[in-house]
């Protein structure tokens, strides 16, 4: 049995930043900057860029372009999405059609080249027109005809209880019941299951056969039969964790007595 070694490589404490968004791609970390946009950091936790946005509502979800050149923030309470060009840090606000006063965008999407297809929790398709900055409905037939791979993946998703989804990799973590979870890889149509795990988690991440279970008071990384636990710093609780690059893990913690106090850490696995 190979013992897992996890080592902290960076840490950044925020005294006055209520961080609740954590996204990663390659070796880049994205977090919210209170309610005024985003901060972009590298894996050493150096701030690389700031994206200033006068948000009128909190961010519910972040969509990442598959080539990591752009993001879209979803602000359902404001019926808005915000498109951000990560190269220029420019952003465009898109007001959602009235139907989105009822409809909710789901976390499954397709964003490749100039095509950005969003799905809703009621199984509808929308496409963003980047010129007019308008969302318009797409028929199933058109999606099936023009984006068959995504359409098939979307159909497969409907048959699973998905916990975490990675649309760009056409893969997801699913839960069968309280004792069976797994990872589905749509690219090769393979599933790997994990049977022994603990139940007190609120979020799960997966990468390269590593499952990361996040609970406020404990973070567990499971690789085959090896389990490694991390505990939050004093007075802090774990909120989120995301795999970063090939071997790193970014973890977001917060002080429950003061939501403005946030802690960002990077561990090498």
């Amino acid at each position, binding site marked *: 049995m190979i013992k897992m070694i996890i080592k902290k490589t960076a840490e950044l404490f925020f005294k006055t930043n*209520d961080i*609740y*968004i954590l996204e990663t791609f390659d070796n880049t970390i994205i977090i*919210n900057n209170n*309610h005024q946009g985003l901060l972009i950091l590298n894996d050493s936790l150096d701030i690389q860029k700031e994206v200033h946005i006068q948000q009128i509502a*909190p*961010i*519910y979800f972040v969509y990442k372009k598959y080539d990591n050149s752009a993001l879209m923030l979803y602000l*359902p*309470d404001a019926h808005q999405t915000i498109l951000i060009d990560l190269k220029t840090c420019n952003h465009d606000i898109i007001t959602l059609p009235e139907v989105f006063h009822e409809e*909710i965008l*789901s*976390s499954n999407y397709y964003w490749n080249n100039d095509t950005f297809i969003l799905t809703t*929790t009621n199984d509808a398709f929308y496409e963003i027109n980047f010129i007019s900055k308008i969302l318009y409905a797409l028929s199933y037939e058109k999606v099936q005809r023009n984006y068959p791979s995504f359409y098939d993946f979307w159909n497969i998703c409907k048959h699973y*209880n*998905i*916990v975490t989804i990675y649309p760009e990799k056409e893969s997801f973590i699913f*839960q069968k019941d309280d004792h069976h979870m797994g990872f589905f890889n749509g690219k090769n149509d393979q599933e790997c299951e994990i049977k022994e795990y603990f139940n007190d988690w*609120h*979020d799960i991440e997966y990468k390269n056969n590593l499952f990361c279970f996040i609970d406020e008071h404990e973070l567990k990384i499971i690789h085959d039969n090896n389990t490694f636990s991390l505990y939050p710093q004093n*007075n802090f*609780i774990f*909120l*989120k964790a995301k795999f970063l690059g090939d071997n790193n893990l970014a973890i977001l913690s*917060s002080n*429950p*007595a*003061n*939501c*403005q106090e946030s802690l960002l850490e990077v561990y090498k696995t």
Partner: protein
Amino acid sequence: MHIFQFILLFSHVLTVPLHAQYGNTFYVKESWGTNNTSSRPTKSPSSQDGWNNPRNSPCHTSRNFNNFRATDFQRHFQDRGLTEKEILQQPCLYMFDEFVKFAQTYSSYTCTIQQLHAELKKLNIIQKAYYFVQGTYCWGLQKRIHYLYNQLSTLKNNNDVVTGPTISMETYQLLKQLSAQQAEYKALDGVYRAYAPSLSNVLAQRTDAYRTMTSNDTLQYVSKSYNLNNNVKHLLTKYGHDTARFTQCYGNQLDQAIHQESLDLLDRIDTLPSSSFLYDQQEALVDFTVAMVDYNHENLTDKAMNIADLCWTLLDYGQAIAEGAALGAYTAVTDLVNNPIEATINIVAGKQILAYQLTKVLYNVADISVTALSNFDKAKDKWNKYTEPLNNIIDAISKKEITIRDAIKSGTAFVVGYKAQGKLLGGLGKFCNTIKNKSINFVKNNTAFNPKEYLATPEGLLFKATADSNKLKQSGQNTASSLTNKIENSLKTPEFIQQNRIPLDRETILHNELFKKTKITPVKGAQVYNKDNLFYHRDTFHKGKGAHLEVYNKQGIHLGEANPLTGQLIPNTADKNKKLNF
């Protein structure tokens, strides 16, 4: 001119009451047995015991013969020296099985029944009404004679051994109606079993009766006596109803089952506790039951069943509310707003079933016509807009009541059928007016609450169900499948649980008007709300079943996690480390 019309006219001219005579002078009732000079033979039975007198005809004193056996009838007539013709000329006595047994011993029985059947078919509603008032026509007589007539055909066919048993067109229509109703009950069986247990029980009994009834070649009509307990008698008397209608039922197995149901209903209504929100509807419920029995006596079984369905649904709804209160599901006017799911499932589902049953009774049985379109959903916060649909229904009921009263007064209506409808309309009028008055009182006594909050209370749900009935009728959505869909939709697992994601504020109780947005800086991307000096926000990290709200007091101390759908605190979840900073 038809013989009945002639006799009716003649009797009016001579101011001589009609008498149940058969043959050429059928139904002519003379005033023999009184002090008047009479052309009637002195050995008339009525001259001795008075039962053939219009005021004391067999129809009015039916209970005297309830315990007579065929031999008793034989002795009775022998004592009075009546001839075969005179005995068979007492139509109302055919309501008694034992009399029929006795009458069948006479050779002219077949002929008498055939002629009675033919004559009764020709009677118009005015004549029936007149004879009814005179006491020579009684409830269900035509149906009974029709049955006896059919029995003759069956006997004949059986003797011929050529053809199978036949059923009349009326019986066929009845069975067709009942079969449709059975299909509806089957479709809604799951819904009723889950949310309307009393209704479900009686439907099982009705289904048994229906099966027994249809398993035989012919419908078996019997006259059955029922004992009323003192409480039921007192209840009927209290609201001015005659107990006699409940003591006897002539009909098939299903008719008898429905009659027994009416007594069971009265028992339940009588035991409504004064704390029940249905207590004020007691009189309306009794009226409904009386109307139900009247329709049953008139062989309008489907209508009787629809009214019974409404009564049981109301009682089940009352029970769900009482149980909800006992479980602590709600204790105050706003609690149902806060508890839309869990312990109040039966109440929410009950409201849908109630709207369904009420729509059937209002528009199919009572046949009221609401012409004004009600847009209940656009009422916003204006109370008079909310009450508009209910007022329209009340107006329609009153108009219909006046029409019926006028029709009866002018003699253009068949009293018997209209009487049942009149009773039903009376009950519906009381029912709707009680709902309206209670809502007015609520508004007067609870000025702090708005109409939407009232509509989330048990009584408000009853108000809404009644007002919505018009919309249901007009949209054509009052079908078994729509009801099932509605209940499923109102009780289905919230999407954020199904989809295992973090809910939005609008998917939680925070969307309710009682929760006010604060200017406190959002916590981890969640807006902070205030209600009753407590502060709530969504947890933005727990998904699906684990989703919850965080609740703090006005000092910012964490009180615990709360159900996102109900706002109810989850025990033992307070975390002393969590704090809300103002």
